[in-house]
Every structure is written in structure tokens, then in C-alpha cells.
């Protein structure tokens, strides 16, 4: 019986092709947004979490923080310096403290120039090991830098690839950085963190000399003892620096972040974006549902005579109700199906654009069967829900009135 009703419904939708399509547009725009967002959102979250996963859990990052409003330079920020490193080293529970420099430099190779991040590597063994360890660095080709590798660099995997200088950079080649020649002794494994894939590593002394830096620190990495609580140590470091810099609580010009904090901040922002977009999508779906209701109302009015005939030849009220409910459900379902297809393709398209741009598999599309099925069921039920009142009215039509039309 339901099979027959389905056939009736599909026949009717086909008969009113244009109207059916217009009605379904309302549904599938919303569904497209929801599907692409959810399938990308999970991938995006994984990608962003991946940026931090290279920092192990017992590593804290100390950075300069913005100090309120106003143009740059209007507020005096005391930059991180060697004194801060010493203060942090004295904090109870901190094992090793490594100051880091991250700068942008000009790189020349194969008659092409490009600007790249360069990060320093400490010359001391224990600090160097800690950086390698906490950033999860390993050489894909050649080797990592050691304490006396002056004039040598290690490249992130994206830099070594051919598309940046139109020619692959092999281990053993020389590249020009800020006019000085450096030998490439290693190429890093591809990391989930795209900043690492695009960075050049060189010894701290080399970098300071190359750029003429003195006592300049961009961020400080502190590794804590294994059995300590990172949050607790972060508070202690904050307190020590505040005291040293004579700052009141809440007016710090620096920030101490645990990896978990960083992830949760990003996830929070991501969630807010998701909620906003899902909200907009839901509104569009509701508008789509109203479209279904409107179409079904018109349909009932137009088909009064048909309804009357069906009742005359034996259709019960419930039969008519089912026929119309299935029809409006199918409007929702087909709209949902198109939405799933469009949403999935736009998610795949967006992720491949992003991945091309960043040069690695940053954003994966997470398209689960559960998501697809629940979206389809949802769209069908949406159609049924918004078609309920018109369908009920159709079923309650008195045959004699319906036939008189």
C-alpha cells in the first residue's frame, strides 16, 4: 500500500516539476550549509588541534601579549628578554627554559626569491633535544642540526618541494638567506603543523649574527617536570614575571599558555562560528519548510476534485492523509538528498582549495554515514511536519464538496 502511495506521490511531484524544484531549493540550501559545515567543521577542528599537537602537554609557551587598544607603539610593552628567561628558570617545577626567535627572511634559490619563516635551534644539547622532541621534529632526508652546525640549515618539507623555487632543493645544496650562503643538511618530515612545513631551522648564533639581533626573544618555551600540573606551573610563572616586571594582576604584557589552553581557545572560537552558521542554516531550513507547507496547500486546493474522486472510489481519510504526507515528505527528502550531495561536494572542494593553499593535508572532510542518514531522515520528517496541516485538510475534505470543484 505504501509503495503505491509513494508512486502516487512521486508522480505528482514530477507533474509539477517547476514548483517542486522551487520548493526544494528552500530545503537544500539549508541542508547544503549544514552538511558542508559539519563535515568540514570536524576536519577543521582536527586540523587546528593538529597545529598544537606538536607541542607536548608539559610544555608551556610564554609570549608578549597585546596590551589593550590604540595604534602600535602607543602602549609600552617590555619585550621578552634574557632576564625573563632567568626568572622563569628559577620557578619551581620548571625543568628547561628555551628562548626562541622566529623571524621572516628572504631566501634565494634557483634565481627565485621568497620570504620564509626562520626559527632558531639552540646550540646546547639538552635544549635542542627538547625543541626537537616537543615539536616532534625528524629528518625525512639528511639529518637534524647539531650544536656545531654553523652555516647549515634544515628545511621544512614544503620549502624543499619543487613548487616554491621551481626546483626541488636537495640535501647538500646551498641556499642564500639574507645574502649569506647556507648549506642544506636535512629536510623535515611532513608535519601536521603547516608552519613547521614552511620554516627554516638554523642555529641560534647563526640567526642572531645574520639579522644582527641582540637579546631579542620572540617566545619562551618552558618544559616542566613530568609530574607537575601545567596549569599550576603556568600560574607560578605568571606570578614570578609579574613581580619581576612590577605589574598588577590582570595588566600583564605577556601571556603564559599551556597547549590545552590554546586548543580550547581555538575550539571555542570555532564552536561559536559553527553555532552561528548552523543557526543561519536552520532559519533557512525553516523557511524551506514553510515553502513545503505553501506548496502543499496549493496542491490540495488544485487537486480537490482528485481527492473527491479518490474518496468516491474508496479512499479512506487516512489513505488521503498518507498520500499527501508522503508527498510532502518526499519534497523534504529529495531536497535533503540534493543538499547532501551539494554540501559534500562543496566541503570536498573547499578542503582541497585549503589544502592546495597550505600545501599539505590540513583540512580533511569528515563525511560520516550517520550524518548523511540523519540529514535525510531529518529532511523527510521536516517535509512531513510542514505538510501535516495541508494533508490533514485534504483528508478531511467531504467528497461531495471536493467533487463539486
Amino acid at each position, binding site marked *: *500500500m505504501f*509503495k*503505491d502511495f509513494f508512486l*502516487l506521490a512521486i*508522480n*505528482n511531484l*514530477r*507533474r509539477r516539476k517547476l514548483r517542486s524544484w522551487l520548493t526544494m531549493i528552500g530545503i537544500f540550501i539549508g541542508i547544503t550549509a549544514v552538511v558542508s559545515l559539519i563535515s568540514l567543521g570536524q576536519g577543521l577542528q582536527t586540523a587546528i588541534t593538529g597545529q598544537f599537537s606538536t607541542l607536548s602537554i608539559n610544555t608551556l609557551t610564554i609570549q608578549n601579549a597585546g596590551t589593550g587598544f590604540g595604534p602600535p607603539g602607543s602602549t609600552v610593552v617590555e619585550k621578552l628578554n634574557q632576564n625573563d628567561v632567568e626568572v622563569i628558570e628559577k620557578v619551581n617545577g620548571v625543568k628547561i627554559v628555551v628562548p626562541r626567535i622566529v623571524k621572516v627572511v628572504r631566501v634565494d634559490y634557483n634565481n627565485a626569491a621568497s620570504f620564509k619563516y626562520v626559527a632558531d635551534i639552540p646550540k646546547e644539547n639538552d635544549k635542542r633535544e627538547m625543541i626537537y622532541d616537543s615539536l616532534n621534529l625528524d629528518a625525512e632526508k639528511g639529518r637534524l642540526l647539531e650544536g656545531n652546525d654553523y652555516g647549515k640549515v634544515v628545511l621544512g618539507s614544503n620549502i624543499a618541494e619543487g613548487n616554491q623555487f621551481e626546483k626541488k632543493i636537495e640535501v647538500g645544496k646551498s641556499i642564500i638567506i639574507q645574502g649569506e650562503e647556507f648549506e642544506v643538511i636535512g629536510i623535515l618530515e611532513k608535519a601536521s603543523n603547516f608552519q613547521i612545513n614552511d620554516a627554516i631551522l638554523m642555529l641560534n648564533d647563526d640567526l642572531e649574527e645574520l639579522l644582527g639581533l641582540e637579546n631579542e626573544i620572540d617566545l619562551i618555551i618552558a618544559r616542566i617536570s613530568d609530574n607537575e600540573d601545567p596549569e599550576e606551573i603556568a600560574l607560578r610563572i605568571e606570578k614570578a614575571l609579574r613581580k619581576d616586571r612590577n605589574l598588577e594582576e590582570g595588566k600583564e604584557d605577556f601571556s603564559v599558555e599551556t597547549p590545552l589552553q590554546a586548543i580550547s581557545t581555538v575550539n571555542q572560537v570555532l564552536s561559536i562560528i559553527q553555532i552561528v552558521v548552523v543557526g543561519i542554516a536552520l532559519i533557512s531550513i525553516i523557511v524551506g519548510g514553510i515553502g513545503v507547507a505553501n506548496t502543499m496547500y496549493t496542491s490540495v486546493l488544485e487537486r480537490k*476534485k*482528485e481527492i*473527491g*474522486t*479518490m*474518496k*468516491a*472510489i*474508496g*479512499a*479512506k*481519510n*487516512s*489513505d488521503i492523509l498518507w498520500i499527501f504526507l508522503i508527498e510532502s515528505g518526499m519534497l523534504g527528502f529529495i531536497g535533503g538528498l540534493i543538499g547532501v550531495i551539494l554540501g559534500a561536494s562543496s566541503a570536498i572542494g573547499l578542503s582541497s582549495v585549503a589544502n592546495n593553499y597550505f600545501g599539505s593535508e590540513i583540512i580533511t572532510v569528515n563525511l560520516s554515514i550517520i550524518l548523511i542518514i540523519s540529514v535525510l531522515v531529518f529532511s523527510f520528517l521536516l517535509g512531513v511536519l510542514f505538510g501535516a496541516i495541508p494533508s490533514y485538510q485534504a483528508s478531511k475534505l467531504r*467528497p*461531495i464538496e471536493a*467533487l463539486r470543484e
Partner: protein
Amino acid sequence: MERKINTKKEKIIELSDVYKYYDMGHEVVKAVDGIDITINKGDFVAIVGPSGSGKSTAMNLIGALDIATKGDIFLDNINIKQLDESHLSQIRGKKIGFIFQAFNLIPTLTALENVMLPMVFQRIPLYERQKKAEELLIGIGLEHRMNHLPKELSGGEKQRVAVARALANDPDVILADEPTGNLDTKRGKEIADMFERLSKEGRTIILVTHDMNVARHADRIYQLKDGKIINK
């Protein structure tokens, strides 16, 4: 599909002192004003009268499409007043085959599917439905039009499909409202002949018409005027 002709006349429809009034606000229209009709199994009855005579209302009452203001209507000894809408539908589907002036085929369904539709509502399995519908369409010479949509059929073909649909559930009564009204004389006669043939097969036929050429095929004619039967 031969039916046994009942030698003993069995009552199938009885209208006993039936009235149907419509309250139009400023006046009450007496569409049917106290009629008594008894129809036995196998009868071929015509109800005739000019438009506005109440014959369509009478047909709607007989077909359980409408409810009388006063009086009782018995269909196979069941007083239809006592039935709710769903039971009425069920009874209509099983016991009455309707044929309308405008054919009233479902435009999205093929001829075959249209003939199958009344059986869908009686929950008859697909295989049986299809077999029966094919037999009926072959019987009226439409085997080559089975998979055509109504819009692809001529008026005469449409009405033959409608007749086949009316026969789908093997009803006790065929109720036809101006079945030749939208057809030319030749097609009209074809349909009238078809009724006569069905009558000979033992079916009960009630024909509402204003066309005396069609009505004279009937065994008995009720003439209506102003909601009353003026001759029998």
C-alpha cells in the same frame, strides 16, 4: 466475468422519504424533496430530469457521497446514516462503482494504474490488481492504451477507462452521473451500449442523465422535477 442473474429480486438500494435541503442563508433550497426509490439487484434504472431537478443530489445520496437532511438510505440493508466517513469510503469502494461526467481519471496515472487504484484502497495485492485491471481494459478493447496517460486518450477512451475503473472492485452497483455528457453522439451510444451489456451480465446500474436517448436503454426511469419524482 459472467454474473448469475438473480431470479429472486433482492433489494440493494432503498431511499425512504429522503429530503436534502441546502440552507443558502436567505433561502432554503429543496434539492431533494421527499423521494422514495427502491432498486433491486440487476436493475437498470435511469434518473432523468432537467438541470436543477435534484437528480445529481439524488445520485450523491445514493452513492453515499452526501448525507440526507431527513430520511433513510439503505445500501445492501445497511443504513448509511450510521456509518462514519471511513466506513462510508470503504462501502463506496467495495459496493459502488462511480462513473463521472468529466471522467475524473487521475491525470498522473496511466489507464492501467487508474483502473488499479480502487483496488489499492481495498488493499488488494499488486499481482491480483494488475491482472484484474488488464482483464477489464482488454474487455473494453483498450489493451493498446493501457500505459497511456489520460491526456493521451480520446474522450470516449477516457470514459471506457472510467467504466473499467468502476468495475475494478466488482461492485454491486454502477452509479453513472451524465456519463455521456462530454461525449459526441457516437461515443455516447457506445457507452450506453456498454451499460446495456453490463446490465445483461446482471449488474445493477443507476444512470443519471438528461439525455432521453441514453435513458431509454434503462428498464425503469425515474423522472425528477423540483426534487420530486413526477413519474415512474
